[in-house]
């Protein structure tokens, strides 16, 4: 899907690219854009090859309120809370997962041909089989999408329930019959059997590290249980003491026989045979790697007519923990199908959100509706993205929205020219301001209704504007010009400022003001996405929290007196992707 400009993304502090926030001086209130320019290393470069691994949309980030930091998928660990089958939506206890593997043991099977869900279908008995089976219904697994059915491998069931049991029984019967047919010396072990043998072998090896070369290896004494029994029968040292008396543990040996799970090459199906079969059946009838890996039963399948239905792999529901402090960042409710969360620390609810939109003087009251491409209603509606013209000053409205219940002091810092091959000039007209506190949802509604009685039309926003800019008449709103140092608009929990951007030229490399700063990307011409105008902005948010008595302040940066408001501070890099520059 095409990307819709402009959008914003947030840098997780775990990345090397995000330098530690520039010195945490307490009372530092203003950043002159050039102040940060002095230290080029500290500017987040969104065009760095690794920047993509540090940037996330705000919705994808979590926030650890113990560590007071953003958390991205690389700085949380996931923990399985429960397993469930995606088809029958039953929870599978972890003991069953450990015992039977991560597949549904009910009647949930996927089609080996196209992976969609198989349905148990009833077919009425055929008359030709004689009288006994004439009226008996049999059941098959059928794929409603590609018409594969278990009849293709001649599989029919007597009952519509307990399919797993019936399948394993039928498979066992069939494979043993096959094995008996084959020459007794060249019995290829089936995958499941080999796996079962191997597991038992290694379990034995783990529990008992007896010497495989011991003289009793071919005698009844080879088994430790037997040996223990015999030792206790004849007295002498108890088996455990004997075991302890061994000086050092013997190295584990590997499986040596088929009974231990060893599988060797057998030419039961000779290569010539297979090649000939391949020639006659063609490419479409051979199995793909995906099909062979779909289930253990299909591991050896070479042709599509050897594929068995695959039991549905289970799904998990996972909680996420902060890697640093191990607290849960999200923890869903432990019920299959429930989308509720017990704990959910979203970054959206904890850090001020930045959004950017073009400044359009005509539509300043309503603003262009930002269209989410996922919700477009007509296929033909998608607009072609507008390209930015080099050296043409464009103004943008940068809105900071505050999700916190305290009013937040924001300082924005941006390099005067954007890092990367194409240097664009960026100026935020008002880099420091305050954003009001967020309230409950209905506060907004109440505020706008009370305002609408006094002001016409736009309600809250124009009221806020009027209070901000002096009693400005509605008519003068239209030709109001952005001014340096002035806030553009302000609502209860959001503040907008104007930002001026002069896009650089894509073709010419000499427009860069700071030359030689980025030696690492001296690849010559503009790389992929070098023409995307991306503005790194360092956001510093400061606010005060009422400390409740008894709350630990040890982890805080500041040692405040109990009772006094606690000053909190948060800094993070935001990258505003403004658009592509025309070349």
């Amino acid at each position, binding site marked *: 899907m095409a990307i819709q400009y402009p959008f914003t993304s947030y840098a997780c502090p775990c990345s090397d690219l995000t330098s530690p926030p520039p010195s945490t001086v307490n009372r530092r209130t203003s950043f002159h854009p050039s102040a940060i320019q002095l230290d080029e290393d500290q500017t987040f470069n969104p065009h760095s090859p690794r920047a993509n691994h540090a940037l996330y949309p705000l919705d994808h980030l979590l926030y650890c309120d113990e560590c007071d930091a953003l958390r991205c998928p690389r700085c949380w660990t996931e923990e399985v809370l429960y397993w469930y089958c995606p088809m029958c939506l039953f929870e599978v206890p972890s003991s069953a997962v450990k015992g039977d593997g991560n597949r549904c043991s009910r009647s949930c099977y996927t089609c080996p*041909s*196209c992976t969609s869900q198989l349905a148990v279908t009833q*077919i*009425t008995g*055929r008359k030709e089989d004689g009288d006994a089976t004439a009226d008996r219904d049999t059941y098959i697994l059928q794929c409603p*999408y*590609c*018409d*594969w*059915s278990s*009849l*293709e491998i001649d599989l029919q069931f007597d009952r519509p329930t307990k399919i797993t049991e019936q399948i394993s029984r039928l498979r066992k019967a069939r494979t043993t019959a096959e094995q008996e047919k084959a020459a007794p010396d060249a019995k290829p072990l089936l995958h499941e059997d080999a796996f079962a043998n191997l597991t038992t072998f290694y379990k034995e090896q783990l529990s008992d590290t007896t010497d495989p070369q011991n003289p009793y290896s071919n005698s009844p004494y080879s088994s430790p249980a037997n040996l223990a029994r015999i030792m206790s029968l004849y007295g002498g040292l108890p088996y455990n003491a004997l075991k302890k008396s061994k000086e050092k543990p013997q190295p584990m040996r590997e499986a040596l026989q088929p009974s231990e799970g060893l599988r060797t090459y057998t030419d039961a199906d000779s290569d010539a045979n297979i090649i000939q079969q391949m020639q006659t059946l063609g490419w*479409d*009838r051979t199995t793909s790697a995906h099909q062979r890996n779909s289930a253990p039963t299909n591991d050896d399948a070479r042709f*599509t*007519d050897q594929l068995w239905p695959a039991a549905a792999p289970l799904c998990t529901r996972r909680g996420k923990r902060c890697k640093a402090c191990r607290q849960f960042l999200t923890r869903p409710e432990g019920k299959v199908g429930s989308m509720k969360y017990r704990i959910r620390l979203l970054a959206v609810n904890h850090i001020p959100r930045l959004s950017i939109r073009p400044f359009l003087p005509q539509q300043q009251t309503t603003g262009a509706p930002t269209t989410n491409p996922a919700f477009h209603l007509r*296929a*033909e509606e998608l607009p072609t993205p507008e390209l930015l013209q080099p050296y043409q000053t464009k103004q943008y409205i940068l809105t900071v929205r505050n999700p916190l219940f305290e009013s937040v002091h924001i300082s924005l810092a941006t390099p005067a020219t954007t890092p990367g091959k194409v240097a664009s000039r960026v100026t935020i007209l008002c880099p420091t301001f305050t954003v009001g506190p967020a309230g409950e949802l209905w506060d907004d509604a109440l505020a706008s209704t009370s305002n609408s009685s006094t002001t016409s039309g736009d309600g809250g926003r124009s009221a806020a504007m009027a209070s901000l800019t002096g009693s400005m008449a509605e008519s003068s709103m239209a030709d109001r010009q952005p001014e340096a140092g002035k806030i553009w608009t302000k609502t209860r929990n959001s503040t907008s400022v104007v930002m001026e951007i002069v896009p650089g030229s894509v073709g010419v490399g000499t427009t860069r003001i700071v030359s030689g700063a980025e030696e690492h990307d001296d690849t010559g011409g503009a790389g992929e996405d070098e023409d995307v105008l991306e503005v790194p902005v360092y956001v510093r948010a400061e606010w005060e929290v009422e400390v409740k008595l008894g709350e630990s302040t040890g982890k805080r940066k500041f040692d405040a007196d109990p009772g006094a408001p606690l000053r909190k501070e948060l800094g993070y890099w935001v990258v505003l992707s403004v658009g592509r520059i025309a070349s």
Partner: protein
Amino acid sequence: MATKSKRRLSNTTTTAPNLSAPSANCKLHSTAIIADKAQLTGAHGIEIGEGTFVHPYARIDAEFGRVVIGRGCIVSEKAVVGSRVSRGVDGGEDEGVVVIGDGVGIEAGASVAAIRVGEHCMIEVNARVGAGAVLGRWCRVGACCVVAEGEVLEDFTVVFGDGRRRIDAVAKGREDVRDARAKAREMEIEVLRTLVADGSMRWRGG
């Protein structure tokens, strides 16, 4: 390509249903049900067999050649049956002719321009069968799959997924499975008969 064809579809369905009355050489069987809002257009004539069901907003387009639909078929809404180009056998008199066999199901939004669709085929939602293609018996074209122009599918072919093909060996080998499928189609028509009113009088009124 896909969006283009869809756009064309949406434009036509929003216009009045009866663009141009098909000519008098239409042969609609008396037991066929053609919903009131179905569209039958084109001058080359349309033949619809016994017990066939045409849903509302389905379009049968005989503008470029005769369309023959066999017995016991279902044509769903927004499906288009008919060749958009004059392409046929050797450019002869069969140009643009579309022949659909008995018991064929054409699902919603599918477009069928094949020269011949064998009996008991199933053409799923939004599938496209290009002009001049020939489908054997008991084929199945999966949802959103494409059969290219002029392609020939042998009997029992299943087209699914990303254009993968396989032969349905079960249907090939077992008559009872085939019977069950044919029966399901018949039963569906049976139910539809009770639910949707016949509007074919308009087309046969003549």
